[in-house]
């Protein structure tokens, strides 16, 4: 049996979509998305999207990188195989700093990319909206709102009424 994925509504202009998003946001929905051919400034605010959590991954990656660099050089030069180089101490944060700094950047970059993939559930080879033929225009000249059926506030009749009231056109249900 086909399962309902959600309800889609189309909008012709960015202001129409923007204000519709505000209404969906204020109605308290959480599992929904807007599909647009190009980024719309301020839409994340209209949708009530909070700031991304990716920076937390970045910070964790950076701290890991810095500690890795420092401990690697301490372990190699001062602990496992103590070696005098250029009359310098076995370990000093001075000469360990450039490496730690590089690893901070490298691990931050890895964690940022990784965190972004994780939070976006990428790679995603299938998404139900790809089956709906009208979404071709989401890459061209039309704007869509999709409210998912697994949203706690989802109710086929009420959600449809909300989208109609918000000015949505060609409202349709799409399958999982």
């Amino acid at each position, binding site marked *: 049996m086909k399962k309902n994925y959600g309800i889609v509504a189309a909008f012709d202009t960015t202001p129409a979509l923007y204000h519709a998003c505000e209404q969906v946001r204020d109605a308290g929905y959480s599992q929904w998305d807007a599909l647009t051919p190009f980024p719309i400034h301020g839409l*994340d*605010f209209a949708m009530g999207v909070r700031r991304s959590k990716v920076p937390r991954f970045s910070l964790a990656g950076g701290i890991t990188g810095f500690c890795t660099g420092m401990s690697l050089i301490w372990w190699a030069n001062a602990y496992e195989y103590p070696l005098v180089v*250029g009359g310098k101490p076995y370990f000093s944060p*001075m000469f360990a700093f450039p490496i730690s700094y590089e690893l901070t950047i490298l691990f931050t970059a890895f964690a940022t990319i990784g965190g972004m993939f994780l939070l976006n559930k990428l790679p995603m080879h299938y998404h139900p909206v790809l089956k709906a033929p009208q979404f071709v225009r989401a890459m061209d000249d039309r704007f869509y709102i999709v409210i998912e059926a697994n949203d706690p506030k989802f109710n086929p009749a009420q959600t449809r009424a909300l989208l109609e009231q918000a000015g949505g056109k060609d409202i349709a249900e799409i399958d999982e």
Partner: protein
Amino acid sequence: MSAPASSSTAPGSTAALAGKFLIAGIAGLVLTALGFLLTNNHQGVALSYLVGISYWTAVSIGMLLLVMIHHIVDAGWSTVIRRQFEHGTSAFLWLAVLFLPLLISAWVKPGLVWPWMDLSHEIHGGHTVGTDILYQKKASFLNVRMFTGMTVGFFIVWVWLSSRLRKASFAQDSDGEVKWTFMNRKTAAFGIPLTALALSFAAIYWMKSLEYHWFSTMYGVWFFANCMRAAMAFGVMITCWLYARGDYKGIYNTNQFHCLMALAYAFVVFWAYVTFSQYFLIWNANVPEETFWYNIREHGDWVYVGMLILFGHFFFPFLFLLSYRRKSTRGPALFISIWIATIILIDLCYNILPALKDAENQPLPFLSINLLWVLTSVVGVGGICVWAYLRSFPTAKLIPIRDPRIVESLTHHEATAP
């Protein structure tokens, strides 16, 4: 966002405030002069004055560079704050005037501030500067005539560039001609290298030559980093002041504020990169010709000043500004900007004041009466600079209202929900 209401583009009167800063400035200068005349500590007062004037020159150079970088990259978001930096650069003329006492001292009493100007000045080992081979080799560069000519040249470059940029920008307010934007872009194209050279040589002549044996290729860049950080710190203070007055309400949004703080944040890292590189290369090479400069700064309480700069100039602002919220909220941003502006002053003290030596040729401590003269100098020169800014402030619109990029700047993408 709609165009700003006309009432908010007509800046309110700043005459009373300007008067207060002028009085503070004159008071600071008079106190510094009295300190120079009435105490025996001539060199200490003179070097403290050098700290004060270098500090405010750094602020102005940074503002000049921010304006020129804005033009050369055809920036959008910063159009709205550019006008304040243009007002800030009106201080150059007064800085040139305020530098005169130091120039006069170079002719009247050579060696008072810069030891190499006095050829009979005794250096370590019983030699004099005049018999020092390291001075003789540098004498064509380090002589009073070159010093005077170069210093006059620096100020001519800065005054000329800033007045050109200001004139074109203010003229655009009235006629809206796009040619002024192109003129400023051309000014920026040759102005950036000129300013870069002038500020590097200024750092070398005014500060680095205090220890003329020493050399560091990072010195000009170090000063540049401080210039930029100082200008942005004062930019944030100006922004907050204009918010408090109500001028910036509905004009300067959270995202432009965040952009300014993000740029300031980038320069936290840039400053650290440059300053660490200078220290690290000298530490690693371990050549006495270079290390002595840092050895001086590990004597007495200077080692703690060094630590304060390491942690207070880099680690603290770096960790503080990591979060988006602190970069986009006025309170924390204002706090860290005042902090950075203060620590830059200490960084300049760290570079200049150890030139004051005791009988054993060791640097005099940081915590001394000279801090009082640093304070009077900073207030003195700063009062005049802020007065110059406030005097320029009512002569033009609050924002470059007819700049081609102004709409783009005003509608700069609003920040997301916190």
